[in-house]
Structure formats: structure tokens, C-alpha cells
């Protein structure tokens, strides 16, 4: 089954599928068992230029929009692979591209495009602040030509597989700011130099293979030239990057959903019980059909958000809604796929249980469903703020 023929970027999708075919289920099962990083897969994607899709041609990328990037990630996930190990290499550079100095752009972007520098760690979340980002406590104190950073981050993915990290920290205490969202700044941390000299990375074992970690900062010195944009405006800088992240994660959910639907439909036609394929029972068909209906609607929203982003329109609400719809549609599809497979859905070699665990993440990260609903309630519908 290939599905809709009018999909965007057919030639990109075809090439991504071809690459992914060389990384079949047993490759991911092996990594999953050892919680190991998919180094070979990431290298193949990097060398083929799929991770530099959003970087302008002047800096060595392909200069394509978010719509092309969603095609890449959707196909990766539809193939049964997972982009989580490297999707951030696509968009984390956006903060440097949009708000960095010409010197920073020249210094980093060409090497990010070639893959020589991995810029795929994004440090925002903290154990005590949670989703309430303005309450982060990691503090960067300016001392001469350096910032001295102290604090802690949690759930920072790919920190061990990244050369640079975009770090959000306070540079002015919250109490001293006019608005809670003021007084935060973005620093580029060179992980190669920082580890062992004020930065400790501790991996967290989770229910999925996501290379996520905890970070401890203890008088870490970061050169002041690594400040992105102006001091105190960091929160605004990362917000614009978050729209891209949400749309791209949503496209991964769409890919996951299609994976589950492809697999469930194929299995239902193949599996005979009571002397006939289980697919002949409407009780089996309808959940598959429902998954397809829900996913198709979510995919439209993802396309819309990506298009708006590419046209430079404000799309925070659309990006949020796309992420929510897509993550719920993929989760429904995941659950349906396990049910369709019966006991075999639990067997590692079918990849269903792995993808089931993987796709669950996206209702929580990078932003949880409740926070999206709260955004829509207060910012779109004008309902009273609850926090």
C-alpha cells in the first residue's frame, strides 16, 4: 500500500524510503534492547543531506521549507525507523539562523549543514520548573568575557551525541524582571569543551530509546561571544523555534500512524482465524478505517501549519493544534495496531510494541496536550487564564 498519490515531494519520499529500507526492524530492535544510538542510520541521513534540508543554500544546506522537512520525517517514521535520534539537527539551528550574529552563522551553519558539527541538543526543561518555563533556575552570571553557568536540566535529549547545545537560562532573576518571560538568554554551549569542566551529563533510562539525559552545571564557563542575540530576550528566540519543532514532531506522528495502519491492514488480510482472514470482520476493519480517517484529518492540519510556517505567517496555534491532533491520531493507530495483531502485537520482532512505546512520547513532549488546550482556550477563545 502506498496510499495517496498526490503526496508532496514524491521524489524526496521515494529516496528516504530507499534509505530506510536498509535499516529494517531488526536494526532498531537491537538498538532498542541496548538503548544504543543509531549511529549508522544518522550517518546515512546526514551524508545524503536530509538533515540539512532547512539550512539555506548559502550555508551549504538545501534551503527547502518545513513542508519538505515534514516529508522526510514522515517517511522515516512510516518506514518503521525513528527520527528522534536526529530530527533536532534539522531545526535547532533555527535559533542561530534567525537570531545569531553573522559571525556565529558563518562559524557554525556550514558545519551543521555538512554534519561536521552536531547541533541537536536543546536545553530548556528543568526538574522544578516543568512546563512553567519562566521559572527555570539555571543561571548564567556574566563575569568579564564569560558566563558562569550553574543549575540543572532534565530530559535533554541527544546531549551525548551533540557538539553544541542551545541552552536557555536565566540571566536576570525572575523577580527583577518586568515580565516573567524577560531575563532569559540563549547560550551556545560547546559540549566537547564543557563536559568534565563544569558540565556533567547523566543518561536517563526510559521506556523508549531516546538518548535523553540529565544535565548538571557547576560553574561552567561559556564564552560571552556564545550568547545568541541580546541578553534577556532568549525566551522569545526559542518560542519561534518551537513552532518548527512542533510541526516536525507532528509529521513524525503522521508517519507513525501510517506505519500502524499499513501494518494493521496487511496483517488483517493475512491472518486467518475461524477459517477466514480477520480483515473480513467489520469489528476488525472499522478501527483501522477510523485510524485512517483521524490520521488523514490530522495530516491536513500538519500540512497547513507547515505551509503557514513557510509563508512566514504566525502559526503558533496551528503548530500546536497539528501536534495535538497528530499525536492523538498516531496513538489511536498504535493502540488499534496492537489490538489487530492480538498476541503478536506484543512480540518484539513485529516492531509494533516498539513503535507503540515510541509514539506515546509525543502527547507529552515537546509540549503536553493540556498545555496546548490551555493555549487554545485562553489565546484563541479568550477564556480566562488559569495560570
Amino acid at each position, binding site marked *: *500500500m*502506498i496510499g495517496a498519490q498526490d503526496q508532496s515531494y*514524491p*521524489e*524526496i519520499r*521515494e*529516496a528516504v*524510503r*530507499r*534509505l530506510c*529500507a536498509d535499516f529494517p526492524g531488526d536494526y532498531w530492535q537491537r538498538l532498542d534492547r541496548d538503548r544504543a544510538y543509531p549511529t549508522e542510520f544518522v550517518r*546515512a541521513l546526514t*551524508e*545524503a*543531506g*536530509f538533515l*540539512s*534540508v532547512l539550512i539555506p543554500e548559502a550555508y551549504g544546506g*538545501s534551503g*527547502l521549507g518545513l513542508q519538505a522537512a515534514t516529508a522526510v520525517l514522515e517517511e522515516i517514521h512510516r518506514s518503521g525507523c525513528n527520527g528522534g535520534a536526529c530530527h533536532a539537527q534539522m531545526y535547532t539551528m533555527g535559533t542561530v539562523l534567525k537570531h545569531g550574529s553573522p559571525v556565529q552563522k558563518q562559524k557554525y551553519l556550514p558545519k551543521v549543514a555538512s554534519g561536521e558539527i552536531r547541533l541537536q541538543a536543546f536545553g530548556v526543561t528543568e526538574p522544578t520548573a516543568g512546563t512553567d518555563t519562566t521559572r527555570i533556575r539555571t543561571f548564567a552570571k556574566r563575569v568579564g568575557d564569560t558566563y558562569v553557568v550553574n543549575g540543572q536540566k532534565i530530559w535533554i535529549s541527544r546531549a551525548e551525541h551533540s557538539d553544541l547545545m542551545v541552552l536557555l537560562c536565566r540571566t536576570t532573576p525572575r523577580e527583577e524582571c518586568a515580565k516573567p518571560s524577560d531575563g532569559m538568554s540563549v547560550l551556545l554551549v560547546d559540549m566537547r569543551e564543557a563536559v568534565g569542566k563544569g558540565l556533567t551529563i547523566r543518561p536517563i533510562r526510559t521506556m523508549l530509546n531516546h538518548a535523553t539525559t540529565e544535565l548538571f552545571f557547576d560553574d561552567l564557563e561559556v564564552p560571552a561571544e556564545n550568547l545568541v542575540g541580546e541578553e534577556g530576550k532568549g525566551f522569545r528566540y526559542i518560542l519561534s523555534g518551537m513552532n518548527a519543532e512542533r510541526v516536525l514532531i507532528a509529521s513524525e506522528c503522521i508517519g507513525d500512524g501510517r506505519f500502524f495502519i499499513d501494518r494493521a491492514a496487511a496483517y488483517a488480510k493475512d491472518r486467518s482465524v475461524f477459517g477466514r482472514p480477520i480483515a473480513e470482520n467489520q469489528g476488525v476493519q472499522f478501527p483501522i478505517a477510523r485510524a485512517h480517517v483521524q490520521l488523514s484529518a490530522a495530516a491536513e492540519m500538519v500540512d497547513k501549519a507547515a505551509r503557514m510556517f513557510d509563508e512566514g505567517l504566525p502559526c503558533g496555534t496551528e503548530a500546536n493544534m497539528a501536534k495535538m491532533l497528530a499525536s492523538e491520531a498516531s496513538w489511536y493507530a498504535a493502540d488499534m495496531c496492537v489490538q489487530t495483531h492480538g498476541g503478536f502485537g506484543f512480540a518484539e520482532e513485529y516492531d509494533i510494541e516498539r513503535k507503540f512505546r515510541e509514539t506515546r512520547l509525543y502527547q507529552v513532549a515537546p509540549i503536553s496536550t493540556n498545555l496546548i488546550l490551555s493555549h487554545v482556550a485562553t489565546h484563541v477563545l479568550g477564556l480566562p487564564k488559569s495560570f
Partner: protein
Amino acid sequence: MKVLVPVKRVIDYNVKPRVKMDGSGVDLANVKMSMNPFDEIAVEEAIRLKEKGVATEIVAVSIGEAKAQETLRTALAMGADRAILIVSETEVEPLGVAKLLAKVVAEEAPGLVILGKQAIDDDSNQTGQMLAALTGRPQGTFASKVEVEGDTVKVTREVDGGLETVSLKTPAIITTDLRLNEPRYASLPNIMKAKSKPLAQKTPADYGVDVTPRLKTLKVSEPPKRQAGIKVADVDELAAKLKALGVAA
């Protein structure tokens, strides 16, 4: 030296083929299609020859339905310079393909034609050999290594007993085996460039070749289903079972 690489659009090697209800052939409706894997190897070899400065231009050619354009675009995205599509909505048998390729060879005068040793859909393994016969060119089939020196090309062949090396005078015909190389992935920048590379559309009539099938498919059937096996606890039980089945004394 120009290199001509014929490529075929076939059912994807990861897809489990299903036979049509009426047994007339494999059901290709809504099935994922891709470039024949041996042809991918052929394209890769041509690109490597170009990177070494041996080949100057790579021309990909496909004979098949209009959708074979996608396969040619893949060849262009990998690194071919231009493409020729000879459209036939009915199946063209190996002899018809070889005749058409012979015409293309006469027109393009390539120093080398590199083909896959067979297509994974019909497994005919005939086109390269027929093309060599029709053009009177030397052939090195089942190549696992290709080295061009001046106007000769040394081809290491995978034969039953091991490896055989033959030396051919160019222009020559080569067919690829699995171990010749590992094809590269089409890169994103090259995929975008491939969109503007030239792709000429032709028909068999343009070359004056009659491609009417000469063979009739009587019946296509699926291989018999593999029966479920049984698990044995240890070697003793295995030996007992084999004895019971009469396969061991």
C-alpha cells in the same frame, strides 16, 4: 567515454508479491515499485567510473510504462546526466528490450553499456547477453569487479567455481552481480538537481522496433505455503523425530 545504463522499474524487493485472482500475473495495483536492485548497482558503477575520470557522461534508459520516469529520476538523482524513456504500456520481453537498446546504442555510441544481470520481477537474465549478440560487442556478465584501462575493460565474473577474469575490448557490454558495489543513496541536493536534468520521451515506433510479445503466460501461481514446523526440546527428541519421519536411520 559515454556509459549507457538501462534501468527497469520493478516491484520493490521488500514487497511480498501477490498473484492476481485469475492467475494471469502478479498483482501490481497499489504496490510499491522501485528500481531493479541490480540496475542500481549498474548506475553506481557508472558513477564511480565518472568519479575516476573514466566516464564522461552517463545516460540512463528505461523501457516501460510512463511511470518508469520515476525510476529514471532516481537514476538522475544518484548521478546520471540525462535519461531516455521509451514508453510502452504493454510488457516488453527481453528480446524486444534488447532490440530497442541496440538502437539506442547505435544512436548514442556508448563505450560501455552496464546492465543488471537480471530483473528481480521475471528473473530472465537475458537482456545483456542478447544485446551483446545484437550489437556484436563483447560481454562480461555477472561482474563483481570492473577495471577500465585504455580501450580494454577487465571484468571479474562470479562463476559457479569461483572468480573468472576476462578482458574485453571497448565498446563492451557488462552485466552486474550483487557484490560489484554498494549503491549510494540519492542525496537531497542531487534529488533537487535531478528535476531539471533532461529526460527524453520516445516510443518503440520511434526506433522502428516491433515489441509485440512472442510468449504467452499461461498461469502464474504462488509458491506452496510453508507448513509450520515443530519445536523439539533436545537432540534426542530431534533424532527420534527424524527417525520417525524416515529421514534418519
